[in-house]
């Protein structure tokens, strides 16, 4: 039986999960950009239906975005479960068996409750039976790298927490849960992309080859810091989307005609009186303006930091080195992202542009995270490289 880390299909499956996650982030962006987060008031059901039996004829207006997001979330949840099981091999079969048994038991218990609809009972029982059945057939292989198996479980845990956060955002009607939901999505995407990279044949070969250059420890730390800065900027972006602060300032490069806009009561009244939009957003507050301005300042900081990363890598490794080329691409992505941010404001927060801004932000974060991982694992002083890389390589490798 082949080891999972040697299996090209495992890598392809991890890539598929990463792509599905990016799609899910995009649909999530559409939900907030269209202000449709509360278009389906109940959860986990949708208008009383099990989400998988919700009639297509009812997918209208904001429901289309919110319900599609829920279904896409379920797909990513299923893919992550399969990935975690695949990475963990034989021991996971036992967990799957127990999980299937518990879900089946819950389904049978629900069948005795008249308030639970039949479609929910059938869904639970069907899922439980499927889990039980699959546990006897797959996975039967030995686990690969212990660390990768652990990260697979972390991914599974994150996707469950993420689903719960999304559901609670709807039922508890709290904006801050949406902010955590939006930020955790980015972290989850980084983890899945990291798993996709570490399960690739290219990674296994590159990690054992002699390094083609050394990235100084200060540069590696700066790469990490810049990536964390992007994560912070994405968290600010999530806060803006969930508090509808994207249009708290409708102009660029100035802000309400000034370098730093006034936020006193008279100014706020003036901004709100002049705001005539069919979407009739909540009144602009001083907090929203400060949040928006912080996001703009953060953008300048991220732009400068990524440019500095590129220049530092070019200085350390040369202009033609693989990492330098990756950093150049990263900087280009940040330029696109800055342009999309400006376009979002100037287009009066057009949903498509705002969503693209979310998606490119996620890709920029992943690019920074993977660049940091590569620099630490492959282009640091030899003892450190092996230390970082070892846990991610198959034991059989």
């Amino acid at each position, binding site marked *: 039986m082949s080891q999972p880390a040697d299996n090209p299909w495992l890598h392809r499956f991890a890539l598929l999960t990463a792509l599905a996650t990016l799609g899910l982030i995009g649909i999530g962006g559409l939900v907030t950009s269209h202000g449709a987060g*509360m278009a*389906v008031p109940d959860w986990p059901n949708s208008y009383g239906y099990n989400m998988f039996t919700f009639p297509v004829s009812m997918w*209208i207006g904001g429901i289309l975005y919110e319900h599609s997001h829920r279904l896409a979330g379920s797909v990513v949840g299923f893919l992550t479960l399969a990935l975690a099981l695949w990475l963990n091999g034989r021991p996971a079969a036992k967990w799957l068996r127990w999980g299937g048994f518990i879900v089946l038991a819950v389904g049978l218990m629900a069948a005795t409750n008249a308030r639970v609809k039949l479609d929910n009972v059938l869904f639970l029982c069907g899922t439980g039976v499927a889990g039980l059945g699959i546990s006897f057939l797959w996975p039967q292989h030995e686990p690969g790298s212990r660390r990768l198996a652990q990260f697979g479980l972390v991914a599974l845990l994150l996707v469950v927490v993420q689903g719960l956060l999304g559901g609670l955002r*709807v039922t508890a*009607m709290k904006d801050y849960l949406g902010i955590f939901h939006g930020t955790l999505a980015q972290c989850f995407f980084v983890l899945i992309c990291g798993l996709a990279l570490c399960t690739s044949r290219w990674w296994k070969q590159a990690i054992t080859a002699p390094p083609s250059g050394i990235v100084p420890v200060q540069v590696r730390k700066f790469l990490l810091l810049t990536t964390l800065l992007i994560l912070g900027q994405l968290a600010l972006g999530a806060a803006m989307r969930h508090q509808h602060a994207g249009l708290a300032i409708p102009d660029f490069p100035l802000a309400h005609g000034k370098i730093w806009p006034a936020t006193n009561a008279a100014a706020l009244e003036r901004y709100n*009186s002049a705001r*005539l939009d069919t979407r*009739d957003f909540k009144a602009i507050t001083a907090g929203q303006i400060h949040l928006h301005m912080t996001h703009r300042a953060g953008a300048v900081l991220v732009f400068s930091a990524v440019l500095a990363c590129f220049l530092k890598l070019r200085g350390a490794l040369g202009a033609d080195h693989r990492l330098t080329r990756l950093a150049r691409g990263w900087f280009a992505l940040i330029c696109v992202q800055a342009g999309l941010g400006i376009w979002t404001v100037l287009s009066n927060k057009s949903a498509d542009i705002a969503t693209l801004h979310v998606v490119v932000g996620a890709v920029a974060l992943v690019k920074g995270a993977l660049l940091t991982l590569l620099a630490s694992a492959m282009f640091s002083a030899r003892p450190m490289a092996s230390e970082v890389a070892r846990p991610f390589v198959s034991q059989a490798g």
Partner: protein
Amino acid sequence: MKSLILTLTTIAFVAGSASAGDVTGKISLKGTPAPEKDIPMDPACGKLHDGKKVTTRFYVTDGAGGLGDCVVYLEGAKGGAVSDKAVVIDQKGCEYLPYISSAQAKQTIRVLNSDPALHNVHPTPSVDGNKESNKAQLPKGAPLDFTFEKAEKFLRFKCDVHPWMFSYVSIFDHGFHAVSAKDGSFKITGVPDGKYKLVVEHRKGGKVEKEIEVKGGAKADFTIEAK
């Protein structure tokens, strides 16, 4: 003797405050507001308007200078029993009707759905003590009732299925409030005699106020400037 004086004083007070009247007036719009925006309705909702354009309702006027949808109230007033009658908001043609209304704290606000379309009714209060909720309402579904405990100006009701649907209800802790009709006229009934501050508030046009004295009634006209 002491109790006799107290009784006579109470009778005099009750007799005095029993005199009440209507506060009426008219609100005019000065200036020309920005044109209303066309609402990009989806095809299903658009059909309900027979292809006619539907616009925002920021400034509702009668074309002769009157300004509707202004909330008029006596600031700091007390009293006025909570009405048994519900304030009714209907969803018709994927719009909330009326756009602006007023109610008293704990008064029932009943939301109907006369549309052949699905809506969710989502009040989003911003004052502590008023609860946010979000309820589904099927086409021609049963009415949904809401109540709010605290006073709050322009409490927003929205439908997240149709992102252009809004209604604003101003909640008062007294019974002396009204919303101006399209011609700008308003009437607050049963106001006890006394001195008051009469306030007119428009969502976009802002707030104006006047000191008034009610003696069996009062009349006051206002002008709001388009912003």
